[in-house]
């Protein structure tokens, strides 16, 4: 019974933890401009993150090493250092976007301007990172984040033309008002939103935090393979809400306040309250994960002691890294930059940086010296190679498309 509860809890937190500010903003923007014609990218992204997370979770559980320890061992200090710099900066960008997301969500609840919420959000973030137990932190934000299911409920309440939605999703075409380059630019953004690197740093380091062993492999695979696809369905639901309400009206999504309007239209004040709670939980959870990821990546590369299972005094540099990153994120946001813009950039840069972490994990997941009998099977490797091609293509195409389309405008 306890086991069943454990599996259920794992799956539920994986669903709630899947969505972050990047997923919400990108899906809503895409839904309002392209309808569901990019929904296939979410499917590709979800399969990709399932593959990537299950590989890195397996590597962590079997070898006891997290992502950046492996990258350093396999690539050597110089190449791994370049890799670290890129991954660390993009993670910091994502952290900034998430903290901004918390502030915007709190603005929706209070109509107090986001700049006043940023210090509050940063302080709360630091307190939780400093004090809360890893498992409690994970489970609470994941479970509260589940309230975002209200987006899926809203799709039904809005009573859309299902044929048209299915048509957009199943035979995708580029809408007349948008160019092909913009379509593919957003395809990459959506892919980057689904496959953010921090999820993998966090997942593999979390496996070490929670002391997974080979015995826990089945459960971790279950969490990923059931939880993430259900999280992906929520992503599509967000896009569908925007496609139903905004696309016909010619409204382009550019703010968080627009994302919740379809939910209000469908379910009234109660649904609105629920969705705001969900957004706060999802962004706060993701902000925690990215803060921890910044500490994990740097500490693992440098060989510092790390982890929330140690008391802060025993992992001082790990905690200091997180404090500095949270301060930097807060400081950047206090300059009044638009968090939504930061989010849009962060998902694209995530896609650009993805090969840097994907390839080393793929190589180590095949290395019998680390993995013994738990190396990748043939089917996994076939899929992993297909994704290697997709990930590298998206990464290479992202910057030219970003320039050609003026970042999708």
């Amino acid at each position: 019974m306890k086991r069943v509860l454990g599996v259920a809890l794992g799956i539920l937190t994986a669903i709630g933890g899947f969505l972050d500010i990047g997923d919400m903003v990108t899906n809503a923007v895409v839904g309002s401009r392209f309808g569901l014609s990019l929904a296939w990218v979410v499917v590709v992204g979800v399969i990709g993150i399932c593959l990537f997370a299950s590989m890195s979770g397996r590597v962590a559980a079997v070898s006891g090493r997290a992502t950046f320890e492996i990258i350093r061992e396999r690539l050597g200090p110089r190449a791994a250092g370049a890799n670290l710099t890129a991954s660390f900066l993009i993670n910091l960008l994502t952290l900034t976007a998430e903290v901004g997301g918390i502030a915007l969500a709190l603005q929706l609840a209070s109509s107090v301007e986001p700049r006043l919420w940023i210090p509050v959000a940063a302080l709360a973030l630091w307190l939780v990172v400093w004090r809360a137990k890893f498992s409690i932190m994970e489970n609470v934000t994941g479970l509260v984040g589940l309230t975002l299911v209200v987006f899926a409920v809203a799709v039904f309440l809005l009573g859309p033309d299902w044929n048209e939605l299915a048509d957009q999703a199943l035979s995708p075409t580029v809408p007349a008002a948008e160019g092909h380059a913009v379509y593919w630019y957003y395809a990459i953004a959506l892919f980057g939103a689904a496959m953010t690197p921090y999820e993998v740093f966090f997942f593999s380091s979390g496996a070490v935090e929670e002391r997974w062993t080979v015995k826990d492999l089945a459960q971790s695979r279950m969490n990923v393979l059931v939880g993430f696809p259900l999280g992906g369905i929520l992503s599509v639901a967000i896009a569908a809400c925007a496609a139903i309400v905004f696309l016909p009206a010619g409204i382009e999504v550019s703010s968080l306040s627009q994302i919740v309007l379809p939910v209000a239209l469908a379910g009234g004040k109660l649904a609105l309250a629920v969705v705001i709670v969900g957004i706060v939980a999802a962004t706060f959870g993701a902000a925690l994960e990215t803060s921890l990821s910044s500490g994990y990546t740097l500490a693992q590369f440098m060989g510092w002691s790390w982890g929330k299972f140690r008391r802060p005094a025993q992992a001082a540099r790990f905690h200091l890294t997180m404090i500095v990153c949270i301060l930097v994120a807060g400081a950047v946001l206090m300059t009044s930059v638009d968090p939504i813009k930061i989010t849009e950039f962060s998902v694209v840069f995530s896609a650009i940086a993805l090969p840097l972490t994907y390839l080393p994990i793929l190589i180590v997941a095949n290395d019998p010296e680390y993995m013994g009998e738990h190396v990748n099977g043939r089917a996994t490797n076939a899929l992993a190679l297909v994704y290697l091609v997709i990930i590298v293509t998206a990464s290479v195409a992202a910057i030219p498309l970003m320039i050609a389309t003026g970042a999708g405008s």
Partner: protein
Amino acid sequence: MILGDLLDTPVRGPADERLGYVVDVRLVLDGPLVGPLAAPRLHGLLVSPRTGTSFLGYERTGVRSPALVARWLRWRHRGTFLVHWQDVAAVEPGAVRLRDGYRQISPDLPGRPSQRPDLHPAT
């Protein structure tokens, strides 16, 4: 000298011909006992003709998957050979020079990777 001085250094033969770059070194543990372990000894250098980048572990012939990555890395490092440390005449800034009559030895690391008892239940 540290390992970082050697890695990525161009290698030249006795007649100053370009042979490639140092991509790795091989150590053997056969020195006198220092505590519980034998002192390591530098056995030789791995020289790759075209690139100074890493082999990423695919010098071990037992590691073949994922096929595409393994094949690509082996292809990039085709012609890689091992030279004994005794065959190195001089290490200068920016070049490693080999002595006359040096021998190119196969770089393969055959056999099974070192075993970890916790990963390989007795069969």
